[in-house]
């Protein structure tokens, strides 16, 4: 249901009213903008020397690029490990042997139910008692892997669950082993139909690298105090970093749309999942809403 079903196409009076409401909304918006502007002005946030550092290559070379490297390397390693973890535990949970499926379920449910920050802190502080050198990069990356990997495991499992029963049955009927059925029939289709949800989880993973800030891992967010220390421009620095995060996530979103469009064009999936075209994240979420209700799952999404 699109938004426009909620109201009739406005007539002359409706159009006039919409203009009035728009004007009121704009006035309120302008008022808020003015408050922000004057607050910024009163504290000198508009001074040119607070913003010009971002036009100089040294600021980027010394602060933003190293920060970006920290963020992206944690994201890249974390994403690969989380995907691997997700596949292993999704398959484990779907295994016919209880000795595999029950422990897999326990692991997945445990890591999904505790805050990722606590996981990262635990791994960070556990390194020394284990006789390892304290390495904040691996604390961040392993935290990202355990939590997001568990969420991905559930996403992949839901994808397999949504496939028509006949797919697995046909595989068994032609003499494939359960492992072969999973590897050659179920997983490829499940991954294809769940690709939008998988990429959405990668956006979450990218944002969660910022938790490294709390453990003093040198990522983007951690550059704000450093830039502020040099140029006394905390707010401009925070705004620039926020814009970088938004740009990174937008790029990932575009990749998701591209992949989604491509999967639909190829269109051999037997799963009814990819059908609605989850280019619109809300449509994707609407499907997840219905699926979530069907399976009674509530722990799915991580913010």
């Amino acid at each position, binding site marked *: 249901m699109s938004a426009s079903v*909620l109201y009739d196409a406005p007539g002359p009076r409706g159009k006039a009213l*919409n203009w009035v409401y728009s004007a009121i909304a704009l006035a309120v918006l302008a008022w808020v903008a003015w408050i922000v502007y004057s607050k910024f002005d009163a504290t000198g*946030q508009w001074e040119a020397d607070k913003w010009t550092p971002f036009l100089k290559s040294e600021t980027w070379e010394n602060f933003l690029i190293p920060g970006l490297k920290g963020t992206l390397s944690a994201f890249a390693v974390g994403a690969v490990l989380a995907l691997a973890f997700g596949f292993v535990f999704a398959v484990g949970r779907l295994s016919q042997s209880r000795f595999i499926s029950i422990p897999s379920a326990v692991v997945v449910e445990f890591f999904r139910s505790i805050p990722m920050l606590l996981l990262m802190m635990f791994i960070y502080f556990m390194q020394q008692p284990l006789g390892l050198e304290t390495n904040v990069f691996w604390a961040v990356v392993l935290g990202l892997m355990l939590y997001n990997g568990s969420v991905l495991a559930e996403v992949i499992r839901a994808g397999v669950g949504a496939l028509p029963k006949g797919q697995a049955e046909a595989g068994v009927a032609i003499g494939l082993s359960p492992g072969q059925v999973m590897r050659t029939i179920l997983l490829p289709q499940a991954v294809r139909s769940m690709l939008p949800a998988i990429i959405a989880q990668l956006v979450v993973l990218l944002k969660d690298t910022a938790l490294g800030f709390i453990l003093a891992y040198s990522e983007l967010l951690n550059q704000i105090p450093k830039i502020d220390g040099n140029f006394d421009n905390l707010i401009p620095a925070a705004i620039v970093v926020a814009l970088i995060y938004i740009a990174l996530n937008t790029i990932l979103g575009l990749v998701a749309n591209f992949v989604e469009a491509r999967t639909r064009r190829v269109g051999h999936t037997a799963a009814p999942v990819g059908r609605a075209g989850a280019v619109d994240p809300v449509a994707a*979420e609407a499907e997840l809403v219905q699926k979530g209700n069907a399976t009674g799952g509530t722990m799915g999404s991580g913010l």
Partner: protein
Amino acid sequence: MDLISESGSAILTSFGLTLRLAVFSGIFSLLLGVVLATFRVSPVPVLRWIGAAVVYTFRNTPLTLVMFFTLFGLSYQLGFSFDKDLLYRNNFWLAVLALSVYTSTFVCEVLRAGINTVPLGQAEAARAIGLTFTQNLRLVVLPQALRSVINPLASVLIAMTKNTTVAVTIGVTTATMVNEASGQMKSLMERNSDQILLIFIIFAVGFMILTLPIGFIAGWAAKRFAVIR
């Protein structure tokens, strides 16, 4: 078990603080989420743009950055304060503000998804009997949408409860300077490096105790209030 006898009450206090953070942020994020969702489906274009811009900005910014900005930007630099005298109170409400705004964008998107699951005929029938946009939303569409998104909303609230740990960026404490759960766990681990596993298990179980009921209640409520079509 020295740990329990020494720090047991402090741990309980810190979970009390985490619970307060979660309850207040939960209430405000639900209210703000409904407002944002209304904006996003409203007939007034400007409101739709505002809703979309707010959701896009906060959904794509890490919560840690939002928390960081509310304390260092909003409070320290711009002089915004909930309580000029009591630092702990100011920090608590700053954290609630950051969590509420961040979470409300997720609530908004879940609600919009819920609105999408309401059959076309419902809104059409409402229009046919002459209901206005707000009446349509308030009396026909939102009640059904809300009932169909109980489980995903619970998901959001569970994630929000876990996200209260990020309030350590702000340094939220009680009046007696006890940290919320993640800050408390960090300082305990720093002081008791021989009992890190035990400390972790205590806090992990604590969060399960906080979040599991949300899932159970939602599972029950989703069945109880399911829209039968």
